[in-house]
């Protein structure tokens, strides 16, 4: 127990903050340093509109809501837990920072309960609702997200999705309560496509191949990739394989690629599958037969990718995307918030480096909390679900990873990151070097923040029109 616990409610959040910082300054332990960083970053993270922090002048409104409870659906079990664990830790970290800052608007603390979305996810979601959760976050799976979407609209409690990549999720729909922070798959595929064009050059690409997971996500990604690479580089797809999720066997696909010798291989394999695929491709000399292998989500399995592969493959041949977040941007040292989040995350159990999924959890919580603050600022009281939903539409906010906008189509957009996968001996994990930052307008149909009439253009239609 530290003396923080004895602080009384009369003091403002700012006072508490400064006090804690001073406490940490007096100590050299790692934990306290982390905490100092964390608090600094929390200020920034929640300062999307700096005035929202209210309370700075000790004159906050009384919003009569001491606590909100949130539910997070994510993969805590099974092969996909490699992603879900990051999302969960990210969301937990965001909640921790918010509470360290005294809560939303300095008053309302958050609690977070996590459930596995692997089986009967919708049941668990409804359990959250039955339990009276004020907000829900998640899920990761695209199939679950589609199912959940209509439940959310029925229940009328705001949900901010962490992932759920399908392009079509909100197309042709008119969602009110359902939002998605990350992983609109057009964005990550287009980031990969532009990365490929940048590194290999459109003129050097005649043929492409794909190995993507054999379910809706993989088929979606490959479909978008094929269209885009055809429009932008006039390249032909010579091979397209869809191995089952978790099959662990890519021999036949790699053999096919070796005999076709395409210029570029595109693979949206993720988690353990991505690292197994890279291992086997390495063993079968696939990298000798192609100019580049690009994976929009390779970096999601940063913890599992083999050092030998990354070191053994010619530099620049493995291109990896990192969706809407990469911890190395802005460069370490240039943003205290980003550094603080990195330090805090790597201090958590089971996280070597925070990946885009870490940010999907962190960002979803931040999106909601900052929107609630914005609403409180306007209303002077705690908003109801409809008001939160209305505020979230078009809401812009900062995270340590950068600025994001929740568009009117309920799809959040931010910068996309992609670069060359390299090994870093210092952190014992792969990193992305020569990172290209693609702006949201470059890689997605709707321009950031602009209040265009919703869904006038589908993701697929946009890619097709390039």
């Amino acid at each position, binding site marked *: 127990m530290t003396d923080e616990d004895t602080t009384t409610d009369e003091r403002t959040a700012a006072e508490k903050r400064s006090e804690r910082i001073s406490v940490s300054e007096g100590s050299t332990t790692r934990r306290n340093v982390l905490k100092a960083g964390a608090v600094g970053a929390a200020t920034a993270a929640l300062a999307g509109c700096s005035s929202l922090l209210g309370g700075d002048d000790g004159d906050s409104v009384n919003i009569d809501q001491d606590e909100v409870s949130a539910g997070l659906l994510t993969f805590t079990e099974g092969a996909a837990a490699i992603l879900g664990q990051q999302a969960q830790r990210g969301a937990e970290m965001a909640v921790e920072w918010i509470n360290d800052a005294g809560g939303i608007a300095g008053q309302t603390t958050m609690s977070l309960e996590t459930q596995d979305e692997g089986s009967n996810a919708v049941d668990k979601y409804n359990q959250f609702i039955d339990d009276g959760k004020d907000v829900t976050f998640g899920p990761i799976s695209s199939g679950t997200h589609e199912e959940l979407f209509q439940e959310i609209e029925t229940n009328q409690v705001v949900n901010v999705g962490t992932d759920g990549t399908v392009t079509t999720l909100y197309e042709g729909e008119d969602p009110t309560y359902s939002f998605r922070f990350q992983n609109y798959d057009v964005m990550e595929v287009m980031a990969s496509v532009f990365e490929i064009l940048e590194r290999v050059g459109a003129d050097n690409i005649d043929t492409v191949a794909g190995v993507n997971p054999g*379910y809706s996500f993989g088929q979606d990604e490959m479909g978008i990739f094929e269209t885009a690479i055809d429009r932008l580089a006039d390249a032909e797809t010579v091979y397209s394989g869809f191995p089952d999720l978790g099959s662990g066997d890519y021999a036949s696909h790699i053999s096919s690629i070796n005999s076709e010798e395409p210029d570029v291989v595109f693979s949206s394999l993720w988690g353990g599958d991505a690292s197994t695929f890279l291992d086997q491709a390495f063993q079968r000399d696939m990298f000798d037969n192609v100019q580049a292998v690009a994976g929009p989500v390779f970096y999601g399995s940063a913890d599992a990718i083999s050092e030998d592969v990354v070191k053994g493959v010619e530099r620049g041949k493995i291109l990896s995307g990192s969706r809407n977040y990469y911890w190395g941007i802005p460069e370490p040292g240039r943003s205290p918030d980003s550094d603080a989040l990195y330090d805090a995350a790597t201090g958590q159990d089971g996280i070597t480096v925070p990946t885009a999924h870490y940010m999907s959890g962190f960002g979803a919580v931040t999106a909601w909390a900052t929107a609630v603050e914005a609403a409180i600022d306007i209303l002077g009281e705690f908003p109801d679900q409809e008001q939160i939903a209305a505020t979230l539409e078009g809401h812009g906010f900062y995270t340590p990873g950068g600025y994001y906008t929740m568009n009117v189509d309920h799809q959040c957009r931010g910068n996309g990151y992609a670069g060359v996968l390299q090994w870093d001996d210092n952190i014992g994990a792969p990193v992305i070097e020569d990172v290209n930052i693609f702006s949201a307008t470059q890689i997605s149909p709707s321009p950031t923040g602009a209040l265009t009439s919703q869904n006038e253009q589908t993701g697929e239609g946009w890619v097709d029109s390039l």
Partner: protein
Amino acid sequence: MTPGISREDGQLKIRIMKGMELTVRETLGLVAGLVILFNLPTITTLAGDLPIRQRPIYRGIVFGLAAVGLNLLLRHSELVSFGHAAFFGTGAYTVAVLVSDYQVKSATVLLVAAIVAATLMAALIGYFTLPHTGLYFALITLAFGQLLFSIVKGQRALGGTDGISVRTGEAGVTILEQFPTLFGIQLTGQEVPNTILLWFTLVVVIISMLVMYRIVKSPFGRALDAIGQERTRARFLGLPVKRYVWAAFIISGIYGGIGGGLFALYFRSVAPGETLQVFVSGDILYMAILGGFGTLTGPLIGGIVLETLANIANEVVFTGPAGETQMGRFITGAVLLLIVFVFPKGIVGSLKPGGRVFEGAKTLKNDPTVAGPWFRQFGQVTVEAAKRSVKNVRYLLFGVK
């Protein structure tokens, strides 16, 4: 012969319909069960934090209905179907496709369509499985089930692995208005519409159970019993064995189709993993055995229990070498072991006269001291099994002296 009360061999019997007479105990169980099910919404609200939820129980009811159908083959024709998800999935997908592609919204029409589709599917698959019995029957039904699963999950038009939503997707209409209707009532919103659909489902289930009762007590049911017990003899008694088994297969498929159709209406979304996959078929089979495949209501109760159990068991989390792990599958497995070794007649079968729980309770009531020997016996069996394993491992590793 109208409903009424009669006294036979000194026992009070309650006649529900012609040929259907229940003991007082059975009647009380039935009434209690129905009261509980019809009042589920209230009960789950009162339960508060207790893990009693309507959705898993509903899932149990509709899968249990499929298990009741499967039981017609299992109990009477003694054929083990390992592919019953095919019919459940057919019913569910029929509803989903009709709603999303053809804007059909009437729940009753959808349910009839699910029955028709399941009938056709069962007729097709059944025709090819007719010559087989025993393990081959199980494996060929499994093969057809997995074939259907593999095909469906590869169809983009059916949403692939993500499946499809059970709503029309009409433009300019809110999501809530895109869902099916029952007798003109919009089946949306959490509280009331789900309750209406639950009640409707329970009525469908009651009718289905009464029909199944008539089927098994009819000459046709008798013929199925005969075919199951001694197929060759039945053939040489002039029973058209294949035609009867085919008919039974179709009827059992229809029950799967109704279950699947109701599933789609309630959960509003259909995906191959939860309606067509081989382990869904397995679950339907285990529901029948868990509840007691020698009984009419057993499979339905087995369904409710298995789903509720899985729901509760997953709350149990142990911390192992690799961190926190949900122990749901372990617990479900342990319960299935218990059924195999201690209560082979299943839940309902064990509660009936002659069943283990019923007789055990009677003995215990007469002489409470038997509990001691029971525990001792259980201990002895466990110790013996352990010794046997050790001995066998020793034999294998070091040879027999």
